[in-house]
Each structure stands twice: as structure tokens, then as C-alpha cells.
């Protein structure tokens, strides 16, 4: 029983990490309807930048703000150079553009910083602590706490600041927002910048967990089932979905995977998402849209 809890909690905490990456998607999707496939590449880029600066003997206290600034800049740049030219195009076109972007960012990251694996130290050891007989990783707890803080900060921004309100207006009805004088490009630029920051947080945490390497950008693929189950437009939904995906993935791997020779983590979340979609085509928390003809 104790083992079950350990697997469960480990899965839940992993799920938190998935949610973090997924939240970056949700932000951009909510504000501009774009599914940003480049989010994974941004995660990789941010982690790689930070790590490379640290490896060049820069103090983490300096490296962090520099990386942060870089990510903000990247976000604004993407909006200005690429997305502005693709306004009003179909969702498929926008998706493919982000695909192209992800290639550019990946290629650039590795061209700039090299392709080796880097270790990332955040000062929190990956050692277990014991809570009522169950062993939980300290690092996983730290990651969960960080995620919680980030979500709280995001909802603060969304609900209390002018930018946040503008963001919600744009997400709800871009034309109406435009007619109120809200500058769409500015809002989108801000959203991409925020997504960049989210990518940085996710990048640091993931990087510390698994090492900073190319496969980090594939984390985005794991975020997809999370988004689908959660409904693409709700941050709360994303968190719940992340927990579901993380927990079920680990549990399935341990209990079912052993019957099949292991390795089912690779496809299980997708089949799970597929199952969800068949039952609820708009995800757990998504809104069904009425098609007006």
C-alpha cells in the first residue's frame, strides 16, 4: 500500500511539472488562438541559456535575470517578426508556423550552446523525505511548490493588473477588445513574453530533474495530452489534467506496464487523452462552442 502511495505521489508531482509546461500553451492559446508548438523549444532554450551562463562561471544570481530578460525578448521578437505576418490565417497555418519556429529555436540553441548534456543544480537535492511512512522526493515537493507560486502569480496578474484584464478581454473577444482601444499586438507580445518566463521556470525545474539536453523539447509532446484532457483554455483544467496524466502514467507503467514488458509511458497518456476525447470531445473543462452557420 505504501508503495502504491509512493508511486501515486511521485506521479502527481510529475504531473505538476507537465502542467507547468502546459500552462505556457494555455496562455498563448487563450490570448491568440495559437497552439504554440515552439513552447518545448523555448523550454530547452531557456534552460540551455541559463546553464551555459552558469558554466561560464557566472553567478546564478546574475545568470537568472539575464536568462529572464532573454526569454522576454524572445517572446516579443516572435510576436513581432513572425506572428504579426500571420494574422488571420488558419489555425493549421499558425500551428505549422510554430513548428517552424521550434526548429529554428532548437537549431539555434544547439548551434550556440552545443549539444552535450548539461547538469543543472538548483540547490535542492533529489533526496527523499519521509512523511508518515511514505517517501517523497524533496525536489518534487519543491517543484510543486514553485508551480503553485507561479500559478498564484499568474492568476494575480490575470485578475488584478490592467494587463491581465486586457488579456482576458482579448481572449474573450479580440474585435471587441480592439474597439476598446486595447492594442492587440502589445497584448500578444506580453503574452508571449510571459509564456517565455513560464518556459524558463519549467526549463529550470525539468533541467534539474533530467539534465539539460535536446530531449527536453520533447516535453511539449507530453503536455499535449494534458492540454487535451484539460480543455486547452482553462488553467485550472490544465492543473487537474496534469495531475491525472502524471499519476495515471506512473501507475499504469508500474502496474500494467510490467505485464507488457514496460515502456508504456511513451504512449499511455495519448491513449488516455484519446479516451477522454471520445467521451468528452471538448476536454474536461473546455467549453463546447456552438457552431453558427
Amino acid at each position: 500500500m505504501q508503495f502504491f502511495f509512493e508511486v501515486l505521489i511521485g506521479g502527481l508531482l510529475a504531473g505538476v511539472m507537465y502542467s507547468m509546461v502546459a500552462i505556457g500553451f494555455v496562455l498563448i492559446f487563450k490570448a491568440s488562438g495559437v497552439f504554440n508548438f515552439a513552447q518545448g523549444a523555448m523550454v530547452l532554450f531557456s534552460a540551455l541559456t541559463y546553464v551555459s551562463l552558469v558554466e561560464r562561471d557566472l553567478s546564478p544570481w546574475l545568470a537568472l535575470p539575464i536568462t529572464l530578460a532573454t526569454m522576454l525578448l524572445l517572446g516579443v521578437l516572435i510576436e513581432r517578426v513572425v506572428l504579426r505576418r500571420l494574422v488571420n490565417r488558419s489555425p493549421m497555418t499558425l500551428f505549422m508556423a510554430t513548428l517552424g519556429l521550434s526548429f529554428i529555436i532548437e537549431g539555434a540553441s544547439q548551434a550556440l550552446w552545443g549539444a552535450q548534456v548539461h547538469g543543472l543544480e538548483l540547490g535542492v537535492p533529489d533526496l527523499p523525505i519521509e512523511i508518515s511512512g511514505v517517501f517523497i522526493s524533496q525536489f518534487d515537493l519543491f517543484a510543486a511548490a514553485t508551480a503553485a507560486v507561479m500559478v498564484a502569480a499568474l492568476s494575480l496578474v490575470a485578475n488584478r493588473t490592467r494587463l491581465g484584464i486586457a488579456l482576458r478581454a482579448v481572449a474573450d473577444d479580440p474585435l471587441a477588445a480592439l474597439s476598446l482601444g486595447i492594442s492587440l499586438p502589445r497584448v500578444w507580445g506580453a503574452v508571449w513574453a510571459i509564456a517565455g518566463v513560464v518556459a524558463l521556470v519549467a526549463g529550470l525545474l525539468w533541467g534539474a530533474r533530467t539534465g539539460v539536453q535536446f530531449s527536453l523539447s520533447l516535453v511539449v509532446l507530453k503536455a499535449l495530452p494534458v492540454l487535451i484532457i484539460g480543455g486547452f483554455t482553462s488553467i485550472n483544467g490544465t492543473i487537474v489534467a496534469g495531475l491525472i496524466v502524471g499519476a495515471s502514467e506512473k501507475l499504469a507503467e508500474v502496474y500494467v506496464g510490467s505485464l507488457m514488458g514496460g515502456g508504456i509511458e511513451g504512449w499511455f497518456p495519448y491513449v488516455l487523452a484519446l479516451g477522454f476525447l471520445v467521451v468528452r470531445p471538448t476536454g474536461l473543462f473546455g467549453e463546447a462552442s456552438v457552431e453558427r452557420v
Partner: protein
Amino acid sequence: MSRRIPPALALLLLALAAPLVADDYWFNAILIPFFTLALAGLGLNILTGFAGQLSLGSAAFMAVGAFAAYNFNLRIPELPLLASFALGGLTASLVGIAFGLPSLRIKGFYLIVSTLAAQFFVQWALTKFAWFSNDNPSGVITAPRLIVFGHDFSTPVGRYWLTLGVVAGLTLAASSLLASPTGRRFMAVRDMETAARVMGVPIFRTKLLAFAVSSFYCGVAGVLWAFCYLGTVEPHGLDLTRSFQVLFIIIIGGLGSVAGSFLGAAFIVLLPVLLDHVAHGVLEGSLDAGNLENAQKLVFGSLILLFLIKEPEGLARLLTVASRAVAQRLLPRNFPRASAPITVLTATTEARRDLFRKWRQS
């Protein structure tokens, strides 16, 4: 249709003439993968470009085709090689239909999850269950000997002819299909599903058919990939990266264009070669394999963005525009500069009455 034949004819003639000038390197490293990837691109184009269902699982269907063909060939003695090709394609078709079933409930972008599931699941299954690779301990299987109608096609030239024959035949069939009512149903589903439904187009069956045909083509492409190109049957090279590569082929070449699949494949196959030569010639070999890969990524990514922004219909459209411009210069009479603006047209009452009468009688 008649406008499309001359370029296709030209390509065919070039392809037929190739063995006169090409050497083994060209066959093995350029022509065979080019035709194979073009076929895969055509398959994906049928599903994504013509029927509007985005798929990230092309490589999975290729893998299914390759392994199925291998197993059929292995376990059924005396099975003709081309039959194993067909069976490989059909198996891929069935898998494609299975992963296309969710399209009944899931719309648009969400459907991507199904083909991604296919990609990961197929790769896992083929690696995990040794039966597929005939319990081969090293996991690497050699492709069977390529004997068709008693002739041995195992030499580079032979493999080239076999590939060319299969691809040419299937391309012809695809062209026919896409210009037929079925092809129009695909495009109707892509362009405006609600209107299509109201007109009586069976939406679900049409989508499944698109999945079936597309996967068949990808499956056969996979067989060619394994039998004619690599000489081995392994799932490793048919992973998500390959699926993305096939997607890029049709984005760059032109979504919804048969010719585009070929143009895109040519691009994808030739670009690394080009970069390599540039690296050796200009930069004197300072680009190692890793850097080459990064350079490729940068170039591909930038090109995709460029095409999406400037010419969303890809190389195919660029080529049409360019050839029209050239033709205008050469034959100004056949290709008038600007078409006359379309004004409101009036059929005279007489003419219309006649037309109506004719229609009533038919």
C-alpha cells in the same frame, strides 16, 4: 488535368533517363529515397492536404507497412514480392483506419492526438514484441531479395526501377482518385464540413477513407524505404522525427498538390546534400555532423516560416507562377497577361429559357 500532365511527363522522362547518367551513389543516396519520401508525402498529402486531417503519424504507418511486408514475405512461402508490398500497404491501411476512428467524435486540431498515439504506440509495439522482427536477437533484419517476375532487382539500378515503377503507378492512381468525386469529397470535408454534410457527403466514411488510402500509401512507402532504400527493416528510423519530415515535405512542397509532394521531397533530400557541399567547399569541412544537423534545422525552420508567410501553397504554387511567367515571355499569345475582370454576366432571357427547357427534359 491536361495542365498537369506535361510536368509529370517531364519528370517521368527524366526519371527514365536517369540510369544513363546516374551512378550507384545517386541511386542509393538520392533517387531512391527521393521517390520513397515523395510517395510518403503523397500519402500524407491525401490525408492532410486534401482531406484536411492533420497527421503526425506518417512514419508509424510506414513502419507498419515495412514490418507487415517483411512478415508476410517471411511466413508465406512463394508469396510474390509485389503481393507482399500490397499486403504491407493494406495492413498499414487497417492500422490507419483504427487510429482514424476517433475522428467520428474529435474535430480538427484535437485529432492530432490520435496520430501521435499511433506514432508512439506503433514504435513501442514493433520494438517490444520480438515476433515482428522474427525473434532476431540483434533486432536488425535484412530485407528479402527483390525478385519480381523472376527478375532480380537487388542491384542499385534494379532497386531504382522497382521504386520508380511502384511510385509511378501509385501516383497515377492517386491523381485519378483526387480528381474524381471521391477527391472532391475529401476537399469538401477539408474546406467546410457542415456544408458538405448538408449536401449528403458521408463525413465519417469520407474521413476514414482518407485515413485508409493515406496509410496505404505511407505503408507502401515504408516497404520501399526498408526493402529498396535501407536494405534493413527497423523501426528506429521511422520515428516522430521522420513523421515531421514528411509533414515538412508537404508544407514546403504544397498542401493539396500531388506535384508538391515530389517537389517537397526533392527539397528535403537535396538540401542536406547541398549544405554538405557548401560546407566542404566554402567552409572547408568545418561543419561536422552535429553542426550540419543544426544548420539544417535552422534552414528548414526558416524556410517553413518563409513559405507560410509568403507563399502558403508552397513550391508547387511558386513553380506554377514561375512557369507561367516564363511562358508569358515566350508565348505571349497563348498566355494573356491579366485575365479580364469578372463582371456580372447576363444570359439573355431566350438563352436561359432554352437552358431551362433542356434541363427539364434531361
